[in-house]
């Protein structure tokens, strides 16, 4: 074999090895990104579960602060502020987690989560109203926290067992919200519109507080209509 023939052979081999190397590196990168996203998702699921508990504590404290005598009001407000601070910290952590995600937009059921976000924003609006009315300003940037919650819920919603669940505290039944430039949203009408598509919306009044819950009728049902939210609230989906 002449040197030039061997060179041709080795060059072809080098090119083939470089191609195999590139494919392997790309495959590894995809695997690592998927693993990293799965880790973030698990941490966000935990954060989401914790956020749900904190939201419940917050709304209960707000509720009790409104209905309690003056001498107990401060104590419930302090409780609410503590829960609010914990929520803000949790949301910021969730925001940092999701910021590094490879493709959060590919996570499914985004429409339902946007609804959950709207409900969370209602929660934020409730906090702010209470803060002004009671002469208190609860800690944290509600809007930033809600943005972070949007990301956290984006991961949380993927849980097949629970689906999206958020309890919203509003000032009164039938309140229509307009938050952060998004179109006005009638939560009750939206819940009713979503019910035929596999989601169950329920509402309950606790004192002056109105709570809306959204759960999948059958958590494991695969044929839940993902386009229901875009149809019911085009501005959110």
């Amino acid at each position: 074999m002449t040197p030039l023939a061997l060179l041709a052979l080795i060059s072809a081999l080098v090119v083939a090895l470089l191609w195999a190397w590139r494919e392997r590196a790309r495959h590894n990168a995809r695997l690592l990104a998927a693993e990293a996203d799965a880790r973030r998702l698990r941490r966000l699921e935990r954060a989401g579960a914790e956020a749900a508990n904190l939201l419940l504590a917050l709304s209960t404290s707000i509720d009790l602060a409104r209905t309690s005598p003056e001498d107990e009001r401060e104590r419930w407000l302090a409780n609410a502020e503590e829960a609010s601070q914990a929520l803000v910290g949790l949301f910021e952590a969730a925001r940092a987690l999701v910021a590094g995600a490879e493709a959060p937009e590919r996570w499914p059921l985004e429409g339902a989560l946007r609804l959950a976000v709207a409900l969370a924003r209602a929660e934020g609006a409730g906090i702010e109203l209470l803060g002004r009315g009671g002469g208190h300003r609860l800690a944290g940037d509600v809007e930033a926290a809600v943005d972070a919650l949007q990301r956290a819920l984006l991961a949380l919603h993927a849980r097949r067992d629970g689906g999206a669940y958020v309890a919203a505290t509003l000032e009164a039944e039938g309140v229509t919200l307009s938050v952060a430039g998004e179109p006005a949203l009638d939560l009750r009408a939206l819940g009713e519109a979503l019910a035929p598509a596999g989601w169950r919306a329920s509402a309950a009044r606790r004192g002056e507080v109105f709570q809306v819950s959204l759960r999948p009728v059958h958590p494991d049902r695969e044929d839940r209509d993902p386009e229901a939210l875009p149809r019911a609230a085009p501005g959110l989906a």
Partner: protein
Amino acid sequence: MDALSTEDRLRLAHALAYAATAAAAAGVALRTPRHRVVAVVFGVFVIAVVTRLALAPALDGLDDPRRAAPWSYYLDHAAGLACPLGLAGAVWVHVARRSRAEIALASAAVLLALVAYKESTGASLVPFHAVVWAACTVVSSAVLARAALAPAERSRAPDAPTAVLALLVGADVVRVVFGADGLDVVWLDLLWVDLAITAAVLTGYVAALVAASARRLQRSARSGEVR
């Protein structure tokens, strides 16, 4: 030009091809800095070949060049070793992401060993060159293989400079394989091997430069239309 031997003509062709490739790689490196390593490697090749061409007339006529012109003699051998050391250094720095200081120290150690070997034994340096060339090729191949087989967390796709370095290492494998049979027999053939691979790399860089110029022209034409 008539005084030049066939080998010298081939070396001159090498110098021109290396210089053109270094210039083309430098042109690409203006836009994509990671291609600097290719420009540096071919720059080292140019310096080595030109140095050897410049020293050849003075050394060829001497009976004992080591005694008569020791600096020129060792500089000639150092230039001969600059090619394998430069390529191994480029692979070490670009692919293994190690420091330039390490390869500078290793090169200095090899050159000192060359002088010590010659001064102590007085033997021919041709086997020394073959050993260094083979060692550099083995090290470069090992570094490339290690990068290709790196664990998933550390694996990165090879970039264009890595591909060029791998092709050059492939050419050195040919040199080492045939060098083992005796350099004199296939020396001219090996020079053609170097020229062939350099021509391939030069073609790639010129094509990249032409493509970049065409894109620039298209962009300026589009912005002209907008205006």
